[in-house]
């Protein structure tokens, strides 16, 4: 059966005895109550279990097929067998709500009720037993399960992108308002145009002015209104827990059977993401000015006219990353397969990324620019990201004490690092904890050993300090290098954090300590000397240590890691900014293209962020919190680059639509100082970290900060 079918035949023709609802129904009116029941049942059972899915089917029994097309296939991966199925548009008779669905044909060897090709396989999410199964048939079956597109309301659809390569199958990619996209649907014998024609008859379908192959669904002319509508939509979903439609598409992204009891359900991520959204939504409710004005550095009045990717937070990684993730094994990343349209027959969906850069059509000209809010990396990762609300309190004194063995060894280094990463450290614990984080005290040292270390380091410090203190005035006259360094340090310490009471007022002894420690450091590391920025790095350390010797050695520990930032040839800075560039390229190709177009790929606008690790970007207490999270190295040594990427991504819209050039971008970035929500940035950065996976690790610098 091909082509257009305008009929009122029932959608679901097989029977599901478990539900006790055995009659195919074509009247379309008598099942309103059951629809509601089904919905409720799905809400209570977020996993698309067998029962829930049967309910789902029941729900759509009261619908009519306005369009159906056979032999539309999904290609799970390059080497995977394609999965054929039927694409249909359904209209619920009771309220005229339109749905789109693609359901795979049943496997011939399955024992399910559907054996006829034109019937539908019963969808189950697998469960542990299924995931253990290694037979090809089981894996194929699981693929079918994963890729099924359960009926999605048309109102959830954001856009349809048409791909009509001259060689290869024509296909479409549907992007939802949530930012999720459905797998590419390949039309084996044409018909994309017909599909769009029918869709257009039932919904508002507008061809994007920027891209003739992009069709916006339910496009409201006013971009502000459009964004708000989209936000409200999300809020509705959020209130409902995980709505039917979102749950339906989400099932694409949930691996079958990975949820054993001790790992949290991947659903947590989904909900985490929803929570993430709800924050946006709440803002939207508060005032539009808040979200579009202050928060985005834009007035509502200057809101850009092109608002297509309003809700798009992340983009699909470029193809290199797809390949990497593929190699992870078939169980790893089913969602990535969703975007793998680049098999032998079909043209890669993102192959025009270069031309996108060239003609400057940044927004949403490819499926690549749409992608999902959360990635399957996160969804499928066994690592759970605590939401902001779930983040623990700072590591308390009691907890800190509990970390130690009776002989004074810090027992659980990993646990401590993780704790510092997520919760930060209580101000009363910092003085001791930072000594470990900065490598001054070894984790396995006993109390006695630490006392010895302290004693030896005190002696060493005094000796270093005596070296420069003993330089006489006349000697100094013949010692230009020394004079220059002293001048430079003198000039900088008097303008370092002077608003903080700790360093305020004239003749502040702590400013003197800054001076002494920095001078001593130039003798400890004479080749490096003093560089602007070092006083910024030392200031919080001295503030926490309240001791010259301890602060010096902690600073040495920090500089051991960050020294290359201050090298004359700037190699450390360049390699980090290059890594940041690659990271953004990986995580947000659209932003990357924009920055490329604007000739901003040197990322010098992020120079300050990286050189002194956001020291100037946050209020003092938050700097301490950020630094201990970074020093914990809980996720990786270069997590600050993910923070950079997260903050950039948060403002991608303002940057792109503001058409910022290098100068304005630098100003914009500098002006973010004091306006970045640290916990959000940390959370987003972790999402990006999980999302980037190994591909992210590969672009990071090999050493240094």
């Amino acid at each position: 059966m091909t082509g257009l079918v305008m009929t009122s035949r029932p959608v679901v023709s097989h029977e599901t005895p478990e539900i006790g609802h055995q009659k195919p129904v074509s009247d379309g009116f008598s099942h309103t109550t059951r629809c509601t029941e089904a919905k409720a049942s799905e809400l209570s059972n977020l996993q698309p279990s067998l029962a829930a899915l049967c309910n789902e089917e029941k729900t759509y029994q009261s619908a009519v097929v306005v369009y159906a097309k056979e032999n539309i296939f999904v290609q799970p991966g390059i080497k995977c067998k394609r999965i054929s199925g039927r694409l249909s548009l359904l209209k619920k008779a009771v309220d005229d709500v339109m749905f789109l669905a693609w359901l795979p044909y049943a496997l011939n060897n399955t024992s399910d009720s559907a054996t006829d090709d034109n019937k539908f396989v019963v969808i189950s999410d697998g469960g542990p037993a299924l995931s253990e199964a290694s037979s090809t048939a089981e894996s194929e079956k699981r693929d079918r399960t994963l890729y099924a597109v359960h009926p999605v309301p048309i109102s959830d659809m954001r856009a349809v992108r048409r791909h009509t390569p001259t060689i290869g199958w024509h296909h479409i990619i549907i992007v939802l308002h949530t930012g999720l996209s459905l797998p590419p649907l390949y039309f084996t014998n044409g018909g994309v145009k017909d599909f769009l024609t029918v869709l257009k008859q039932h919904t508002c379908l507008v061809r994007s002015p920027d891209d003739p192959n992009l069709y916006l669904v339910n496009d409201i002319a006013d971009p502000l209104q459009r964004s708000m509508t989209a936000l409200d939509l999300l809020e509705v979903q959020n209130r409902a827990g995980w709505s039917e439609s979102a749950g339906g598409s989400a099932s694409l992204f949930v691996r079958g059977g990975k949820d054993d009891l001790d790992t949290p359900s991947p659903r947590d991520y989904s909900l985490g993401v929803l929570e993430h959204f709800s924050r946006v939504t709440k803002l939207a409710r508060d005032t539009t000015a808040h979200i579009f004005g202050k928060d985005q550095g834009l007035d509502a009045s200057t809101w850009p006219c092109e608002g297509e990717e309003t809700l798009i937070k992340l983009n699909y990684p470029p193809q290199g990353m797809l390949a990497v993730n593929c190699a992870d094994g078939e169980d790893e990343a089913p969602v990535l397969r969703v975007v793998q349209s680049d098999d032998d027959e079909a043209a890669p969906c993102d192959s025009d990324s270069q031309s996108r850069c060239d003609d400057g059509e940044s927004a949403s000209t490819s499926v690549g620019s749409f992608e999902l809010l959360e990635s399957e990396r996160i969804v499928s990762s066994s690592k759970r990201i605590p939401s902001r609300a779930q983040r623990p309190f700072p590591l308390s004194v009691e907890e800190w004490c509990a970390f130690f063995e009776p002989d004074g060894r810090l027992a659980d280094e990993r646990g401590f690092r993780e704790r510092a990463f997520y919760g930060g450290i209580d101000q009363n614990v910092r003085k001791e904890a930072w000594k470990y984080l900065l490598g001054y005290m070894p984790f396995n040292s006993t109390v006695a050993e630490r006392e010895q270390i302290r004693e030896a380091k005190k002696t060493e410090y005094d000796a270093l300090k005596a070296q420069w203190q003993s330089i006489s005035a006349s000697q100094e006259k013949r010692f230009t290098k020394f004079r220059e360094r002293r001048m430079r340090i003198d000039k900088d310490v008097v303008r370092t954090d002077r608003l903080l009471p700790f360093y305020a007022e004239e003749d502040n002894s702590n400013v003197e300590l800054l001076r002494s420690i920095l001078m001593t450091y130039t003798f400890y590391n004479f080749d490096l000397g003093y560089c602007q920025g070092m006083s910024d790095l030392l200031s919080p350390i001295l503030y926490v240590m309240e001791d010259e010797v301890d602060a010096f050695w902690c600073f040495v520990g920090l500089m051991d890691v960050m020294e290359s930032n201050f090298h004359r040839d700037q190699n450390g800075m360049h390699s980090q900014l290059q890594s940041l560039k690659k990271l953004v390229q990986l995580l947000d190709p659209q932003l990357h293209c924009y920055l490329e177009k604007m000739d901003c790929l040197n990322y010098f606008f992020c120079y300050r962020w990286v050189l002194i690790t956001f020291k100037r970007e946050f209020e003092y207490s938050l700097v301490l919190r950020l630094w201990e999270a970074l020093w914990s190295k809980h996720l990786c040594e270069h997590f600050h680059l993910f923070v950079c990427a997260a903050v950039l991504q948060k403002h991608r819209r303002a940057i792109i639509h503001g058409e910022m050039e290098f100068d304005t971008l630098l100003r914009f970035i500098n002006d973010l100082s004091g306006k970045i929500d640290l916990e959000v940035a940390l959370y987003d950065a972790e999402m990006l970290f999980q999302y980037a996976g190994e591909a992210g690790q590969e672009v990071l610098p090999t050493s240094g900060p």
Partner: protein
Amino acid sequence: MATARKRTLLKVIILGDSGYVNKKFSNAYKATIGADFLTKEVQVDDRLITMQIWDTAGQERFQSLGVAFYRGADCCVLVYDVNTTKTFENLDNWRDEFLIQASPSDPDNFPFVVLGNKIDLEGGNNRVVSEKKAKAWCAQKGGIPYFETSAKEDYNVDQAFKCIAHNALKNEEAEDIYLPDVIDVNATATTKKASGCC
């Protein structure tokens, strides 16, 4: 006849070993990391000009950043401290470095301005670089305008910036002779020839 291209934004780069050019002393003042700029409105004749005044990290070590930060500059302001010989001696380095990094199309005629700063310090008793010496250097470099300022006392700073704007605009008017507003291919070819002759 082409109408003059009315530009209202001028990018000005401040270089030198003496900071505090356009900022009052304050506890909130911090050393510049990377680069930053502030904007200043200046009335030049009947035009209101916005000056984008760029401050870059002072330390030589960060000079390589100039390639990015000096791009598109309209004027470069060299500042030294009249109380420190070294800062005056460094003017040559700063000027050369700027021309290398910014690589303006016409380096010989790129507008510079020199400021001798901190003339207020100790009532001028600590002064080691005389006005005469500074002016001689400026003359030798092709007649660079020279100003003595005290950023701390806000002395002569506005006059200096008006002159800076003037100079940058003068350069623009010179450009206007060769670059008509409406450019067609043939006309451009002609002007190119003409400018080549001059």
